């Protein structure tokens, strides 16, 4: 497959320095040696629990945060060293949609101003009338009536606000959307509307999505490929269908087993899963304290992906039939 690579990151590291008056300084390596490519027209999902580094990775890819090391490429161009001013004209390539559509909209701005903001930067030659036309058209694409333009954010429901958030991102005609938990704050019935909308827009415009989520049911529905993150590292990556049918990393397996069941008939004993709840190891394999397969050698593991697939010394077999 020789599709264009629209976004790639190489060996990204992000260390947050913490510490202050009452605490000894302690650095947190939120993202460690993360690499991936996003191709034209596909959806790559980054999955993980809170603290896994998935949202930090998204912000690094957006260049909203500076990496401690590693490189970010937009459409093949290295944008790692560019400052905010140099980045601005390039930002029309990659736009972001946030989890909380209310917090991300300015409550004092009419919807049309909020959505049109990007045009003022990226299409300064457009007249006010032309801008309004573009806003109306984009709102319609996102399933909103034109009359939304002259209203304020508080006059909309959560689902409608997320449509506005998507319209604001789309107005500058990006190739890439970074979606950070775009449906997590929404009710189930509204979630389905937004997931369908994202899929329609992707097909119409050939967009690429970097889809950040903790919800495996949602990811299974939208993703072509998946990167599973744990403790700042990518611990497994692959085609979504493969990862769901035959997870290679014990963490991926645990995540899949923890998915909610669809019918009471699938109810298991109330036996809790084995291994620890939470937490990670500071040295060796970071998943070790929670891993039911951990062995002595895992204490010396470097958490790097093997064959670009799985970061585990004793991965699970690639063929589901080879199990048990």
């Amino acid at each position: 497959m020789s599709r264009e690579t629209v976004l790639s990151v190489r060996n990204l590291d992000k260390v947050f320095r913490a510490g202050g008056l009452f605490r000894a300084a302690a650095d947190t390596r939120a993202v460690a040696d993360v690499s991936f490519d996003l191709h034209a027209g596909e959806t790559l999902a980054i999955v993980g629990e809170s603290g896994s580094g998935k949202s930090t990775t998204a912000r690094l890819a957006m260049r909203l945060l500076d990496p401690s090391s590693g490189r970010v490429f937009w459409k093949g161009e290295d944008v790692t060293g560019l400052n905010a001013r140099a980045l601005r004209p390039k930002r029309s390539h990659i736009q972001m949609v946030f989890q909380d559509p209310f917090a991300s909209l300015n409550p004092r701005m009419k919807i049309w101003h909020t959505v049109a903001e990007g045009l003022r930067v990226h299409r300064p030659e457009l007249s006010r009338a032309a801008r309004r036309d573009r806003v109306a058209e984009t709102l319609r694409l996102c399933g909103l009536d034109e009359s939304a333009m002259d209203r304020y954010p508080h006059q909309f429901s959560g689902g409608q606000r997320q449509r506005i958030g998507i319209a604001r991102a789309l107005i500058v005609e990006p190739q890439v959307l970074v979606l950070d938990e775009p449906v997590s704050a929404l009710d189930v019935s509204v979630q389905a509307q937004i997931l369908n909308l994202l899929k329609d827009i992707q097909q119409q415009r050939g967009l690429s999505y970097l889809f950040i989520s903790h919800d495996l049911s949602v990811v299974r529905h939208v993703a072509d490929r998946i990167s599973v993150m744990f403790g700042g590292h990518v611990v497994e990556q692959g085609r979504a269908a493969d990862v769901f049918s035959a997870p290679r990393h014990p963490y991926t397996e645990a995540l899949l087993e923890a998915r909610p069941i669809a019918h009471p008939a699938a109810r298991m004993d109330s036996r809790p899963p084995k291994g620890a709840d939470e937490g990670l190891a500071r040295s060796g394999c970071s998943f070790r304290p929670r891993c039911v397969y951990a062995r002595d050698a895992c204490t010396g593991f470097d958490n790097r992906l093997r064959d670009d697939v799985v970061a585990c010394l004793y991965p699970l077999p690639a063929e589901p039939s080879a199990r048990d």
Partner: protein
Amino acid sequence: MRHTAAMLEIRDLSLAVSIQGRPVEAVSSVSLQLRPGRVLGLVGESGCGKSLTAQAVLRLGEYQGVARTQGDILLDGESIFAMSDETLRRMRGGRVAMVFQEPMTALNPVFTIGSQLGEVIRLHLGLSRRAAMERAAGLLSGVGLQDAGSLLGQYPDALSGGMRQRVLIAMAMAADPDYIIADEPTTALDVSVQKRIIALLRGLQRDRNLGLMLVTHDFGLVAEMCDDVAVMYAGQIVEAGPVGEIFDRPAHPYTQALMACRPEISRPGEALPVIPGQVPAPGQWPQGCRFAPRCGRAGPDCRAAAIAEYAWRDGAHLARCLHVAEEA
């Protein structure tokens, strides 16, 4: 007193919230029964009134301007609205305990786990400080927390989300309640922790024959834990019945649509079935069937007048829908 069967019963309860100084109906004529040893799921989307209903059982809404306009709540036959302040205080956390969604905000950050748990125990059981600490340590082990002794001296911010939720469950168990109200107890937790908290709650509920009311938006959680289900929409119960019935033969178009739009039962890449429009806010409920504007089957009759509950299977399954009544 007519009968005193062990039961928590909500009877024809209506509640009003205050919006810009005016009372607006937010819960309409809700009736529910919870017996010891059963798990009842109260399911619905945001704004449907499920949390208000659950909080009413402890009369918690009164502090936020929620007023009862109709109906009653009976705890083993006794009206909670007739209780004295002292009886009410003993009932809360005593016979009926609550587990909230946000384990961080429900714990006080400036007191240790031991002092918060000990306070609940001493209030309800009248134990000495020392005996309360012993019981506290026992409760923490009982919810699967290791090294309970040293946990007692720690502050909430030293604990992970999952540990805090276990502490809150231990706190709810402190006075051996008969009923527990759990409002989205796993929503704020990571997936892998959710499953463990579910197993813990289910285990405690079975071992102690608790009546558990689980308030949730998540049908996965209902599938996992509940014996009975009540689905709420726009302040009303629109369907109720045993969990197997509701999953196999959902009768109300709203329940059917909610079940169908779950991504976990979808085919990857295909469009999900959706419910058009959005949940109407209190004060904006339509005449007649409140779901009618979003329902593909709604006709003039549905919009004409309020819809009564229709019950079948000896009253075990009920739905508030004209079509269900017609087809039966």
